[in-house]
C-alpha cells in the first residue's frame, strides 16, 4: 500500500527554560506573562542577571527604574547586571 500525504499541520509547545516556575517580582508563572502583558512569548521575555536570578524583563526593568541608586537583584541583593550571554 502506498500512502500519499496531501497535507499536514505541525503542532508544537514551548516553554521558557528558567530555574524557577514563577517570577519573584509579580509571582506570575514564567510560562505566562507579566501582569502588564496579555500574551506570553517573545513579547514578554525573561532576562537573567549575572547572579543567575531570572525575572520577566518588564518586571525587573520596572524595579530598576524605581531605584535610582544601588540597583540590586530583588532576590539576593547583589548588584544587578544583565547577563547577556
Amino acid at each position, binding site marked *: 500500500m502506498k500512502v500519499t500525504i496531501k497535507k499536514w499541520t505541525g503542532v508544537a509547545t514551548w516553554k521558557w527554560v528558567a530555574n524557577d516556575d514563577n517570577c*519573584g*517580582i*509579580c*509571582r506570575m508563572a514564567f510560562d505566562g506573562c507579566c*501582569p502588564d502583558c496579555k500574551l506570553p512569548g517573545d513579547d514578554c521575555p525573561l532576562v537573567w542577571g549575572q547572579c543567575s536570578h531570572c525575572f520577566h524583563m518588564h*518586571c525587573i526593568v*520596572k*524595579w530598576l527604574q*524605581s531605584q535610582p541608586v544601588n540597583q*540590586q537583584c530583588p532576590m539576593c541583593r547583589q548588584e544587578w547586571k544583565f547577563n547577556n550571554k
Partner: protein
Amino acid sequence: MAGMSPSEKRLQKELMSLMKEPPPGVSVDAEIAEQNLLLWIIRMEGVSGTLYEGEQFELQFKFSNKYPFDSPEVTFVGNNIPVHPHVYSNGHICLSILTDDWSPALSVQSVCLSIVSMLSSCKEKKRPPDNAFYVKTCNKNPKKTKWWYHDDSV
C-alpha cells in the same frame, strides 16, 4: 482576575496563599482584605517561650498601587502595641526592610515572619529611647520617617 491592576493581581495571589497556608501564629482578616485589597489587617500571636507569649497583636498593611515596587506601610494597630525597643507606642516599627531594604521579592508573609522574629529575639520589653519625642513629632505615615537603623541585635 480580569480587570485587576498588577498590584491587585499580586495581592490577590498573596491573600490566597496566606489564607491557605498561614505561618504559625499569623492570620489574615480575609473579609477586610477582600473588601479592599489595598488594606489588610493581620493578627499575630506572641510566640510561646518568648517575652510576648500569650499576647495578641494586630498589624495593618497599607499598599499603594505601586506595590510590590513600593513597600507596604506596616504599623501595629489596636489596643495592644508590643512593648519592644523598635516599636513606638503609636505602632510605628523601625525595621529596615519596610523602607530602605525593601525588595519586590519580599511579601506580606516574609514581612510578618521578620516581625515575628524581631519580637521573639527581644531580651527586655522596653520602648525605644526616643519614644515620647518621636510619637509627638512624627508623620502619620512611618514611611515618611528617616529611620536610622543601627541595632541589629533585636
